[in-house]
Each structure stands twice: as C-alpha cells, then as structure tokens.
C-alpha cells in the first residue's frame, strides 16, 4: 500500500501548494518527514538542494526523489502522478473557462488588469535572482561576485541586442562559469 500512500500524499501536496515552488516546500516536509518518515530531516535538506540545482518544478523533483527512495520507479511514478493530477483537473477547467469566456467585457477587464501585475511579478523574480547570483541575496557591494555579475551583463546584452536564444545563452553561461572556475576567478 506504499504506492497508494505515496500517491495520496503527493496529491495533497499538489492540491494545496498555491503560488509556486516555494509554497510546496513546507507541505513536502510535513508529508515526507513528519507524517510518513520517508526522509530524515537531513535527507530533506539534500532534497531541497538537489531541487535547487536541477531543472524542473520542486514538487516533481520531490515526488520523484521520495518515490524512488521508498519504492523504486513505481514509487516515483505514483508520487509524480499524484502531484500532477490536481493541476490537470483544476487548470483544465480554468482553461476551458478562459478560452470560452475571454471575450466577455468583464473577463477582458480583469485580464487587462492582471497583465501588468504578472509583468511586475516576472520582473521582481528576475531581480531577486540577479541579487542572489550577483550579491548572495542582498545588495551589498562588499559581497558582490563580479564574475557572476559580468556573466549576467554579457548574457543580458546578448539577449537584448542580438536576440540570442535563451537556452543558448544559458548554456554559454554554464560554459563561462566552468572556464572562470577553472581559471580560479570564481570559487
């Protein structure tokens, strides 16, 4: 019954984490560490680190990691399916409402007001990431990591001026990090 338990736990995590990855972390902690004891507190920290370092949503990373440790591939599949299912159902309903009713003046007006808010959220997320990468989280010249800031500036220049593809830009920055590291410029 471990598979069912995994499925139901991650179903709850998927259903109640609203507002992106960081909202899911406390829910995962409570289900995987406190309620079921699938991970120790230390393994949970490892999981958070891995989730940060690898692509993909933290909920899916956590579901796969926990499922894999508890019950192998079948566990990873049940936990991941549980996490994704609430999204599939709820967002499909919202998608239907959106595609069908977006011509209504009321919904038009709501969406027109939402757009600048979303732009602001994206901008703030970008700025927060820049501060994290370039200054370790807070604007303090003493903590500036000039190599990371230079990579950021070069990437932004390439994107703005030459419309470089984002994935190529990110890959080039990865190569840049490796070269700067091997030269001893970043630690």
């Amino acid at each position: 019954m471990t598979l069912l338990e995994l499925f139901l736990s991650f179903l709850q995590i998927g259903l109640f984490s609203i507002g992106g990855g960081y909202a899911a972390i406390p829910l995962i902690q409570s289900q995987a560490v406190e309620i079921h004891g699938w991970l120790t507190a230390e393994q949970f920290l490892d999981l958070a680190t891995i989730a940060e370092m690898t692509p993909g949503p933290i909920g899916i990373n956590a579901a796969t990691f926990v499922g894999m440790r508890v019950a192998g591939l079948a566990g990873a599949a049940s936990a991941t399916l549980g996490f994704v299912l609430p999204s599939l159902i709820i967002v499909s309903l919202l998608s239907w409402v959106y595609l069908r009713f977006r011509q209504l003046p009321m919904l038009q007006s709501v969406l027109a007001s939402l757009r600048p808010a979303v732009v602001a959220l994206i901008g703030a997320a970008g700025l927060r990431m820049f501060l994290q990468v370039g200054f370790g989280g807070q604007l303090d010249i003493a903590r500036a990591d000039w190599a990371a800031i230079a990579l950021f500036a070069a990437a932004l220049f390439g994107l703005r001026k030459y419309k470089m593809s984002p994935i190529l830009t990110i890959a080039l920055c990865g190569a840049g990090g490796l070269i700067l590291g091997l030269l001893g410029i970043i630690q």
Partner: protein
Amino acid sequence: MERSRGKRLVTLFFSMLYISAFTFGGGFVIVTLMKRRFVDELHWLDEQEMLDMTAIAQSSPGAIAVNAAVLVGWKVGGFAGMVTAVLGTVLPPVAILSLISLFYAMFAENRIVALVLRGMQSGVAAVIVDVALGLGAKVLKNRKWVHNAILAAAFAATFFFKVNVVWIILCAALVGVILALAERKGGMAK
C-alpha cells in the same frame, strides 16, 4: 490536416521537453522560456494570451510549469495537446531526479557540475530580466495610468513587502472587476 496536427503535437512535445530540461529555478523561468518559444518563435499564442495563462498558472494549485503546460497544451492541441505538453514538461525532471537519487553523493561533490550550474544561474537571471523588460516597456507604452499603477504597486508588493503572489493576483483582478463595473455604469448613464 491529420498530419499537420500530429506534427504540431510532436513540436509541442519536444519544445516542452527542451524547455523543461533547461529550466533551473522557479516557475517564472519556464514561463519566460515558453513565451520566447510559443509567442516569438512559433507564433502559436499571442503575447496577451501568454500573460493571461501565466496569471492563471500562477494562481492555481500545483507547479507553475505544469499548469502553464496544461493551458498551452489545451490551446494548441485540445486534450491530446494537454497530455503531450504535460508529458514533455514532466519527463526531464523525473528522469534526472531518478538518476540523481541513485548517484546523489557523487553529484553533489562534483566541482565541474557546481561551476557549470553557477554560470547557468547568471544566464537564467538575465533571461528573466530580458523578458520582463520587453513586456514592461509594452505596458508603459500603452499609457494607461491604471495599468502603470498596477505594475508599480505589484512590483513594490512582491519585491519590498513580500506579499503572497496569490493576494497580488486577486487584488489586480479586483481592480479589473471594479473598472468593468464603473465602465458599465458610465455606459448606462449615457
């Protein structure tokens, strides 16, 4: 007709697979990459739709990336499109995490891996800032003071006051409702 539909689904699947495999960091990263791919390159969605879908994805439960994939999938290819887009989004992290959970200790201590990841973080931050600058310039160009005020207030609320994103979206939606009601009333008065 059938063939072009199949082709579209294949493109959708590999686009999501590719984007998902390179999405380090939060949901906004994947949304900005999706915007570049589906709006700027493939022209399957317009910019407004992408922003609407971002708002819906952000305020629904679950991972933003999966939610955005559901929305884009339905729009591009109906039910089959939704399933295709979600599979493309989910497969890379599932495959990568399955491998990593087996080799975690080796991975965490590898210096080369750490350096590449650090460099990539700078690139990811630049991509998000680039997309935000492009979209922000368009909001300002419309010269609607209410929208400029929403932009500024939402930015301050999230960046300086760390207000929960769900509240910010609900408040912006409420402003839209009030504007629509005010316009309707104004229209009836004439």
